[in-house]
């Protein structure tokens, strides 16, 4: 019998998804890098040099010769971009911390809930994740507007005398990010907290810890894998967030996702937006690798 054929069929399990991801996920990044080294042009596609397969190897080498780092130089010289990167990182960092602060008590409460109630609570946390991101962000516009529902409520109770300006500020962005990414933080936290052996904290208390110090010395350190996974799940996409700053943020809010979008759609400067994306990617490579590591470790432990 031909023993080679089953081996290849066997390998197709790997080859098909691998090839798909190579072509549609990895190679596009290479193209981004390559175009970030080109010059903008009024043409279609709007960049130069354009590589044509017909030119063959010599054309390819010629093509590489024309590469320039002008776009990167331009990005570093223009304070707009540097500020956008820095403020994206700051906003993402602060929102991640806020999300953790809000998500932890929720996850902790869920893990301590009666076992019969837990599946329902879990489903309720997951449910918003299935509804559109755009819709969830949109819902906040009506709430945060100067004449919006929040201000109406606060005014009617008499807590404030004139409307708060929240929409189109960074506060609105924080609210938007915390709200949209909360399930991403709650889920990994819950899964580490739920697996935790309750007798550990009991043992700590038996040995003289107060409930609060038992929490900080036992529960929290043991939940760190969940904290790390949750923070990365929030931080990484938040850095490049576009919808939230676009809909909730103001014109003065600089976030790199929005800058990239504008550069691409309004200015039609593909090489510069590619360079913006390339730098963003380089910033995020390290956290992404951390995430991948944390995730595969969790997967292995799950076995």
């Amino acid at each position, binding site marked *: 019998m031909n023993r080679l054929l089953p081996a290849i069929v066997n390998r197709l399990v790997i080859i098909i*998804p691998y090839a798909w991801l190579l072509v549609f996920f990895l190679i596009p990044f290479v193209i*981004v890098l390559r175009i970030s080294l080109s010059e903008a042009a009024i043409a279609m596609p709007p960049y130069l040099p354009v590589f044509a397969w017909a030119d063959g190897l010599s054309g390819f080498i010629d093509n590489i010769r024309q590469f320039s780092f002008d776009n990167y130089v331009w990005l570093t010289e223009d304070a707009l971009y540097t500020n956008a990167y820095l403020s994206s990182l700051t906003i993402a960092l602060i929102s991640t911390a806020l999300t953790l602060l809000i998500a932890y008590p929720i996850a902790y*409460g869920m893990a301590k809930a009666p076992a019969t109630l837990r599946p329902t609570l879990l489903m309720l946390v997951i449910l918003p994740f299935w509804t559109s991101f*755009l*819709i*969830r962000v949109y819902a906040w516009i009506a709430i945060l507007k100067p004449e919006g529902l929040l201000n109406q409520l606060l005014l009617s109770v008499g807590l404030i005398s004139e409307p708060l300006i929240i929409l189109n500020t960074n506060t609105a962005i924080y609210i938007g990010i915390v709200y949209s990414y909360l399930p991403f933080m709650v889920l990994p936290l819950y899964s580490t907290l739920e697996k935790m052996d309750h007798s550990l904290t009991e043992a700590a208390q038996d040995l003289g810890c107060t409930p609060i110090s038992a929490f900080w010395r036992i529960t929290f350190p043991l939940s760190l894998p969940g904290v790390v996974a949750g923070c990365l799940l929030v931080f990484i*996409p938040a850095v490049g967030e576009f919808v939230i700053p676009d809909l909730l943020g103001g014109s003065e809010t600089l976030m790199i996702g929005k800058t990239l979008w504008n550069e691409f759609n309004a200015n039609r400067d593909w090489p510069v937006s590619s360079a913006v994306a390339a730098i963003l990617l380089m910033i995020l490579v390290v956290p992404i690798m951390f995430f991948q590591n944390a995730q595969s470790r969790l997967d292995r432990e799950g076995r």
Partner: protein
Amino acid sequence: MNRWSRFNIASIVIGFAFLYLPIVLLVVFSFNASKLVTVWAGFSTQWYGQLFRNQALMDAAWVTVRVGLLSATVATVLGTLAALAMTRYQRFHGRVLFSGMIYAPLVMPEVITGLSMLLLFVAIGFDRGFWTLTIAHITFTMCFVAVVIQSRLASFDRSIEEAALDLGATPTATFFQVTLPVIAPAVFSGWVLAFTLSLDDLVISSFTSGPGATTLPMKIYSQVRLGVTPEINAACTILIGIVATGVLITSIVSRRQQIQRERDERAAFAAG
């Protein structure tokens, strides 16, 4: 000690209120008679009627559903293969890169994914439209599918596959008669997840779609930029309604099955 304290209950109640209140308000104001979405002026379903007369919106919805069905199905096949590759082959060339390509799209900012895919389509001269949109959706949703199925496969009892081989089933027969039926619930929820992700996506779609392939989120987005209107609230409510019913039904069914199963197990155990 392991009691559910007041603090625990309060954090859950407040947390869930925070999660659900905005959505509830959005739904409520879709039935507002006034054109303002912040002042209640009585109940009305006029915006829903207007919605269904909005041909552009209906066209977009149809595109969205078609892309969703097609991309979710292909993504489920690819994602299942990827999950099998990840769990069944501990060593192969480029495994690290492969798992990187599975996990990275889960957190990759959508602007990067969208832009890079657009540039690929332009570079190979692929006209943007329905098909580029579908390919882009397959690519980012298949990774979510892979992760869902992978976690099911991780707890899969391999000895039932060995039993099938031992009883004379070829590896292919074993996969289709034993493995696939057993992981089917995970495959199904992977499909539902892929479908809703595709239904909801705005950023990647905006980059990769072309003329004639405007999706519902793109349409909603362009209208939201012009201002908040009850009509959009109505559109959002319908979307939420579809997704929520789907998710609720599947989770209630699976919960029922699980309860029934636990009851059976107890009964069998008691019977000895």
